[in-house]
């Protein structure tokens, strides 16, 4: 059996978030009270779902839910997903070539061409030789129950290394080299 202390350091997925539920309820209760007062004195329609309230004292921003349309408990998810990571190898006029590595079944590489039409406008800015992207195909089960076959491409958003990072990495590497003991 495990000891009770292990629960203090638990990083297992929580269903839902019990530790913060009470805290969340209190903050929302306080904010809701303040929100109701705003409606009462400013005559804002309580059916208006677009109203956002920012309470400066509590520093809380909540989106009020309409009682007629409570938030959906359903979430969308994918089934039968195949995933690849790709690296751009060549950019053409209306497409680019990429080397793909299979993330679902490790160990296979392929070369494929993608049209720019398949890429979102924001991601088009990230296309350059060497840039990485994730490609997946699968069945998307939407919150409304709809199932659609989807191909999804998303370019990697990686933070660039600074000179400071390079210096740190170098320092760590040198420290590692110093710690190595060679057998004679």
């Amino acid at each position, binding site marked *: 059996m*495990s000891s009770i202390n*292990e629960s203090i*350091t*638990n*990083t*297992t*997925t*929580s*269903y839902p*978030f019990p*530790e*913060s539920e009470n*805290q*969340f309820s209190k*903050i*929302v209760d306080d904010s809701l009270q303040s929100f109701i007062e705003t409606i009462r004195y400013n005559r804002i329609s309580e059916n208006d779902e677009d109203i956002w309230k920012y309470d400066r004292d*509590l*520093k*809380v*921003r*909540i*989106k009020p839910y309409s009682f007629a349309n409570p938030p959906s*408990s*359903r*979430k*969308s*998810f*994918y*089934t039968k*997903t195949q*995933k690849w*990571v790709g690296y751009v190898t060549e950019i053409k006029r209306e497409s680019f070539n990429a080397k793909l590595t299979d*993330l679902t079944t*490790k160990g296979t590489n392929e070369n494929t061409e993608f049209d720019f039409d398949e890429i*979102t406008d*924001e*991601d088009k800015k990230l296309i350059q030789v060497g840039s990485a992207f*994730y490609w*997946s195909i*699968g069945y*998307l*089960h939407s919150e409304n129950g709809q199932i659609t076959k989807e191909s*999804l491409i*998303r370019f*990697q*958003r*990686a*933070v660039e290394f600074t000179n400071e990072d390079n210096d*740190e990495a170098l320092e*760590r590497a040198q420290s590692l080299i110093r710690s190595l003991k060679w057998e004679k």
Partner: protein
Amino acid sequence: MIKEYLHSKSMTLVFLGDFNPILFQPLWFAEKKLIMEGEAQQADIEILHPNLTKFKLDWVEFEINPGRLEMKISKEPFFEPARDLIVGIFKYLKGTPIRSLGINHTKNFSVPTREMYYDFGNKLVPLALWSNFMDDPRVNIVEILEKPRKDKLPGMIRVRITPTLPHLNIQFGVSMNVNDHYQLEEGRKDREGEILNTLVMQWDYSKTRSDEIVDSLLEKLN
């Protein structure tokens, strides 16, 4: 065999440390080019507060309190982008002390019949033990720990088997969660992004081991 009835996968990344919840905001992520601007604008914000932040993008849910940061990813294509996002966030929030990391891999199975579903629970925890003093006993949650870890890394492996969550709408659903938990060695402080390095370095290994655990168990129960 239940393995054949894999329905979907999800992932949760959990960090324990000292966080400032109000710093974690979708618009800030977009400003730092960690997510798309459109994603930030469409974020569903439940609460932004110094003690608790909770919001959803289309593909990830965030909940942050001063001691815990949790990211839930229910769409499989976004597991890797979620990892990149959190690495990017902490690259900007350098010096944030992180003590532990949980990479949670969840596989959901849709078991075709009530008999198979019952049989699965009965093989996991023999229900004959309980039948003298309980009517029609059923298995609800089973949790098994490996501590210390076989790979000698500081932390533990925790396997949790439960019914699937209601939003998946599976009649006889089994959810298998492998919590791959890493922590700093006793007395060490995370000042060099050690836990984040662990996330990046252990990513593939963590997935492979999780698959092996689930597959081997299902094989044995066959």
